[in-house]
C-alpha cells in the first residue's frame, strides 16, 4: 500500500510525514521546500511526501513531480491548512475526482482561534463525503487518529467520478490521473494523444470547481476578525524604502555574525588550536607506522592530508561557517520572510528575465547551490529555470565558500568586501540582463501566495540546520579525500607540476597570482570552497586575495551541483553553462587583477 500526502504548499505536509514515519522531511515557511519526493515507512505501508501544489496539473516542473507520485498512490491524504480552507478546497475537490480513497486532514487547528477562523469540520465531512480529521501536526494532535484510520481496512474504492461517463471512448484506456488531466486540457497529454477535449474546457472545469470550493467554504468556514500586526509588518517589509533597509540590515547582520564573529574570531582560534595540537600529534603518531614522506603518509598527513588538514578545514574552518549560514537561512525560511522579499524584488527581477519567485532558489543558493538548482523547479517556465540556473552556477557562492571568502575579506577591511560584493552583483545583473535580452520569450508575471508571518520555531530551525550541516559533512568529507588524492597523485606522478607550469602564464600574467594557485583551481573543480580554502594558506597580498576570491566565486560549481546541473538542464546546455563559468571567471579575474584598488 502506498499512502501519498498531497496538499497546497506550506500546509504542514512534511510535519505530518515526519509524525507518520519518524523521518524528518524539510520544513520551512515558503512554497517549494519539497521539490523532490521523500519516502518513509509506517508499518508495512509506504508513505510518500509530495511537493506542495495548488492543483493537479503540470504548470511547473514541481507539479509534474507531484502528479507522478499521486498517480500510483493507493490512499491519498490531503493535508489542508485549516486557516486557508477556501484556497485548499480547490485541490481537495480535484483529488476527489481521481476516484481514489481520500482522507482530509485539517491541519493547524491550534492556530485557527488566534487567526479568528470559525470552522465546521463535521459539516465539511458530510458535504465532502470523505473522512475529515482535525489535527495539529506540530503538536502531534490528531496523528494517532490518522494512523488508526490509515492502518484500518474499510478503504472501499469510492464511486467513480461522474465525468468518466462522459469521456470519449478514445481516452477510456487512460488511468485515473490521465483522465483527469486530459479533461483539463493538460498540454503534454493532449499533445501525445493528438486530441483534446473541447477547447476552453479547462477554464469551464476550473471555474466550476472554484465556485464549488467557495460555496463549501461559505457554508463551513468563516473569518470572524482580523489581526492587525502582520499587516503592519508586511507593509514595512514590502515598502521599497523600509524593505531595502531590512535587506541591508540582514546583510550587515550576516557579515557581522558569520564574517566577523564566526570567521574572524571563532574560526581563527579553532583553526589555530587544531593546527598547533591535533596536526603535530597525528604527524608524530603516524610517523611510527608509515614512513614520513611516502605517498600514503602524504595522503594521510600531507598538505591536504585526510587526518590532518581535512580535519582542520572541515571541523575548524568550514563547519562553524556553514553552521552559521544555515542557521541564519533557517530563521529566514521559517519566518515567511522570503516570499515578502520576492514581492519586494519582483520589479527588479523582471529586468533579469525572472519574476520575484526566483528569489527563493537564489537565496537558497547562498546555502547550497546544488539544492537551489533543484529548487528552480518551482519556477514557472523553462526560460526562467535556465536563467536562474545560470545565475546560480556562475554568480552565487554557496555557504561554505561564502564563509571562507567572508573570512578572507574580513581580515582585509571593508573596502575589499565592498569591491567583491559589487563585482559579483554587477555580474549577476549583467548576466541576467543579457540572458533576458537573448533568450526568446517573456518572464511570466508573479503570482505568489504569501504564507502568514510567524516567529521561527526553534525546533524547526534546529532540525533544518542539523540536517543541512550533516548533509554538508557527509558530502564534503569524501570529496576532500578525492581532492587530496588527485593533488597528491598529481605531485607523485608529476602531472601537477606540469599543469602548474602550463597554467602559470594564466595564473601569473593574467590573474597576477602565484603559479601555485593553480592547485586551488584544481581543487575548485571538486568543491569551490576547497579552492577558496587553498587561498587561505597561500600567503597572498590583499589584492591577490580579492582576485582569487572573485575568480573562484565565478568558477565552475562544485561536482555535486555540476551533476545536478547536467541532470536538470541536459548535457548540451549543462556543458555550455559549465564552460561558460570558466570563461567568465577568468575574464573577470583578470580584470579585477588590473582594475581593483
Amino acid at each position, binding site marked *: 500500500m502506498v499512502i501519498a500526502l498531497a496538499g497546497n504548499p506550506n500546509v504542514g505536509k512534511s510535519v505530518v510525514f515526519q509524525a507518520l514515519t519518524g523521518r524528518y522531511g524539510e520544513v520551512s515557511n515558503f512554497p517549494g521546500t519539497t521539490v523532490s519526493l521523500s519516502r518513509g515507512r509506517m508499518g508495512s505501508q509506504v508513505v510518500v511526501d509530495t511537493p506542495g501544489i*495548488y*492543483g493537479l*496539473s503540470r*504548470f511547473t516542473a514541481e507539479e509534474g513531480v507531484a502528479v507522478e507520485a499521486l498517480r500510483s498512490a493507493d490512499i491519498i491524504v490531503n493535508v489542508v491548512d485549516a*486557516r*486557508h*480552507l*477556501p*484556497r485548499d478546497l*480547490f*485541490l481537495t475537490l480535484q483529488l476527489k475526482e481521481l476516484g481514489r480513497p481520500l482522507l482530509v486532514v485539517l491541519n493547524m487547528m491550534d492556530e485557527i482561534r488566534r*487567526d479568528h*477562523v470559525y470552522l465546521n469540520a463535521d459539516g465539511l465531512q458530510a458535504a465532502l463525503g470523505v473522512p475529515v480529521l482535525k489535527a495539529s501536526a506540530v503538536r502531534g494532535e490528531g496523528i494517532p487518529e490518522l494512523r488508526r484510520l490509515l492502518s484500518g481496512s474499510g478503504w472501499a474504492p469510492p464511486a467513480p467520478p461522474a465525468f468518466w461517463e462522459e469521456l470519449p471512448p478514445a481516452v477510456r484506456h487512460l488511468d485515473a490521473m490521465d483522465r483527469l488531466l486530459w479533461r483539463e486540457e493538460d498540454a503534454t497529454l493532449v499533445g501525445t494523444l493528438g486530441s483534446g477535449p473541447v477547447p476552453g474546457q*479547462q*477554464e469551464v472545469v*476550473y*471555474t466550476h470547481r*472554484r465556485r464549488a470550493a*467557495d460555496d463549501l*467554504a*461559505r*457554508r*463551513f468556514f*468563516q*473569518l470572524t476578525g482580523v489581526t492587525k500586526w502582520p*499587516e503592519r509588518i*508586511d*507593509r514595512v517589509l*514590502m*515598502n*521599497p524604502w523600509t524593505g531595502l533597509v531590512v535587506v541591508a540590515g540582514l546583510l550587515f547582520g550576516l557579515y557581522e555574525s558569520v564574517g566577523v564573529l564566526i570567521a574572524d574570531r571563532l574560526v581563527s582560534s579553532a583553526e589555530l588550536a587544531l593546527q598547533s595540537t591535533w596536526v603535530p600529534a597525528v604527524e608524530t603518531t603516524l610517523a611510527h607506522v608509515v614512513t614520513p614522506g611516502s605517498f600514503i603518509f602524504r595522503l594521510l598527513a600531507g598538505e591536504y592530508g585526510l587526518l590532518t588538514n581535512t580535519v582542520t578545514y572541515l571541523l575548524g574552518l568550514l563547519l562553524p561557517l556553514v553552521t552559521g549560514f544555515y542557521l541564519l537561512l533557517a530563521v529566514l525560511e521559517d519566518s515567511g520572510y522570503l*516570499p515578502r522579499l*520576492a*514581492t*519586494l524584488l*519582483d*520589479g527588479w527581477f*523582471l529586468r533579469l528575465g525572472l*519574476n*520575484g519567485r526566483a528569489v527563493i532558489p537564489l537565496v537558497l543558493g547562498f546555502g547550497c547551490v546544488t539544492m537551489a538548482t533543484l529548487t528552480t523547479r518551482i519556477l514557472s517556465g523553462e526560460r526562467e529555470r535556465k536563467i536562474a540556473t545560470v545565475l546560480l552556477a556562475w554568480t552565487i557562492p554557496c555557504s561554505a565558500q561564502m564563509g571562507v571568502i567572508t573570512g578572507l575579506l574580513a581580515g582585509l577591511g571593508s573596502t575589499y568586501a565592498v569591491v567583491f560584493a559589487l563585482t559579483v552583483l554587477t555580474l549577476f545583473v549583467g548576466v541576467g540582463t543579457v540572458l533576458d535580452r537573448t533568450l526568446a520569450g517573456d518572464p*511570466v*508575471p*508573479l*503570482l*505568489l*501566495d*504569501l504564507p*502568514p508571518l510567524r516567529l521561527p520555531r526553534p525546533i524547526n530551525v534546529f532540525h533544518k540546520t542539523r540536517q543541512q550541516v550533516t548533509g554538508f559533512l557527509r558530502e564534503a568529507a569524501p570529496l576532500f579525500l578525492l581532492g587530496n588524492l588527485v593533488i597528491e597523485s598529481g605531485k607523485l606522478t608529476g602531472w601537477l607540476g606540469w599543469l602548474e607550469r602550463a597554467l602559470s602564464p594564466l595564473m601569473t600574467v593574467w590573474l597576477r597570482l602565484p603559479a601555485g594557485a593553480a592547485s586551488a583551481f584544481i581543487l575548485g573543480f571538486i568543491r569551490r570552497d576547497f579552492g577558496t580554502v587553498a587561498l587561505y594558506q597561500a600567503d597572498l597580498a590583499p589584492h591577490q586575495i580579492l582576485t582569487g576570491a572573485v575568480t573562484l566565486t565565478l568558477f565552475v560549481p562544485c561536482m555535486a551541483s555540476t551533476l545536478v546541473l547536467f541532470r536538470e538542464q541536459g548535457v548540451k546546455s549543462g556543458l555550455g553553462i559549465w564552460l561558460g563559468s570558466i570563461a567568465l571567471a577568468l575574464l573577470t579575474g583578470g580584470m579585477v587583477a588590473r582594475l581593483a584598488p
Partner: protein
Amino acid sequence: MRLSEVGRGRRVAVVNVADPRLRPQAARLGIQAGALLLIKVVVPHGPVVVQTGPVTVAVGRRLAAGIEVREAGLIVPPPT
C-alpha cells in the same frame, strides 16, 4: 478599472483575468471573476498584494494590469 490602478485599503471585485496563461493558476488561489479582493500593499513598479478570504497573494504588476476589477465598497459576504 485595472487591479494595478487601485490604491491600498480599497475593496474590489474581479470582473475578468486577461492573461489566459495565468487564469487557471489565479483561479486556484481564489482570484477569478466575482472574487472579492482587499488591496493590502502596493509595491511601486512592483506587485499588488491582495487578500482574498484568508489568503494573501502577491500579483505581479503586468498580471495586475490585465485584471479588470470594479469597486466593491464594503460588500460583506452573505452570512452563513
